[in-house]
Every structure is written in C-alpha cells, then in structure tokens.
C-alpha cells in the first residue's frame, strides 16, 4: 500500500497490476486533501490507511485505475464497495455526484504522470 501525495508514474502503477489483479490497481482518493492511496487487495484497506492518515471517511472514494488506458476516459473506473453510502445519498458502488467525479478526475490527473 502507498499513499500518493506528490506524483506516481504509470510505469509504477503498471508494476502494481502484476502483483494484484492483472490489469487494474485499486485506489482510494481523498477529495479534500487531494491525495490517493493505491495498491491493496481491498478498497477497505486503503480507506483504513487514509483514515489513519487523518482523512475523513466522507471524503474518501474508491476507484480502479487501468494503467494501460492512461490518457483515455477508461483510465478511471468508479466502482467500489466503499462508495455505497446512503447517508451521503450515494446508493451504488459508483460515484453518483458529478461534481465529486470531476474532483476525482482532477486529483488523479494531478497525481499520475506518464
């Protein structure tokens, strides 16, 4: 597991896919602190790590990154069990709020480089 505060290269993400799921890297983004935790078998593990890093759970959103799709709309997949939050009016595994999705995209673009 790793918390990305500055930058991470797609080559490093690609390396992570070999150890875990073959083509994806699980990630959790903190839309307030604009940081991201990556590389764990469950989004819950990344969520817990960020909470221990003083993130607030309500700002954390789970995504999957496809390093081979970097630069395309398919690079980010909004799908995680941790996203199901009825008390924040998010009743699916996706990210239903468009503004939150836009924030996630901006943060991922800021943190991930070729």
């Amino acid at each position: 597991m790793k918390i990305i505060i500055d930058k991470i290269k797609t080559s490093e993400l690609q390396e992570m896919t070999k150890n875990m799921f073959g083509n994806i890297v699980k990630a959790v983004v903190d839309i307030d602190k604009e940081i991201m935790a990556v590389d764990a078998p469950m989004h819950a593990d990344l969520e817990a790590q960020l909470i221990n890093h003083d993130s607030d759970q309500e700002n954390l959103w789970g995504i999957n990154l496809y390093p081979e799709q970097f630069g395309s709309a398919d690079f980010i997949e909004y799908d995680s069990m941790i996203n199901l939050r009825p008390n924040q009016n998010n009743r699916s595994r996706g990210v239903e709020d468009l503004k939150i999705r836009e924030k996630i995209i901006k943060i991922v673009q800021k943190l991930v480089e070729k």
Partner: protein
Amino acid sequence: MTIVFHKGLTTKKWFSMNIFEQMANIGSEVFRMLKWRKKDAKNSNLAFERALELIDLSLCDPKNKIHSKEIARTREVLVDYTFSNEYKSTDKFFENYFYSFNYAARLGR
C-alpha cells in the same frame, strides 16, 4: 459525520461505547437486515443502511484507529454480500461474527 438514519443518536453517545458495544449494536442491524432479506426487501434495506451508518460512525471514532482495517473490511464484505457476493459470505458467517461481540460486550456486566 452527519447522522441521518439514527435520529437521537449523537457522535458523542456512539463514541462513549467501546468497540465491543459498537460492533454488537451494528450486529443488531445486520441481523435485522438478514432476517428481512427474504420477507421484505424494503425493511432489509433500511436495516442495511442503518448498519452502514453505524459502521461509518465507528470508523470515525478516534479511539478505533487500531481497529480501522477490520471495521473497513467488515463494511466492504457486508456491502459485497448485498451485491455480487464475490467474497462468498453467508448469513451464518455474519451471525457468528457479530455474536462474538455481543458476548464480549456483556462480559464483566
């Protein structure tokens, strides 16, 4: 964190409980969710949403940092159970898991 489904519950009240008491209370909602699953989807879903809210409160509780991984994993496995059940959970699994907290919460009382 804003509490939506548990009217009358405050974070102060929830945080005053130890982890065993919190998980036992979460277990009560999970048992309700399981009980209603086959009979009434709406009641089951309401219990599920209440369980998630309590789990999220426990995740926010500063004294639970040492337990955060387990709490977060419990949440993910519970949500998975209501979707594709990739982790192959069963009702029995959740019953056994949460009953242990019931016992722990009552020890010494």
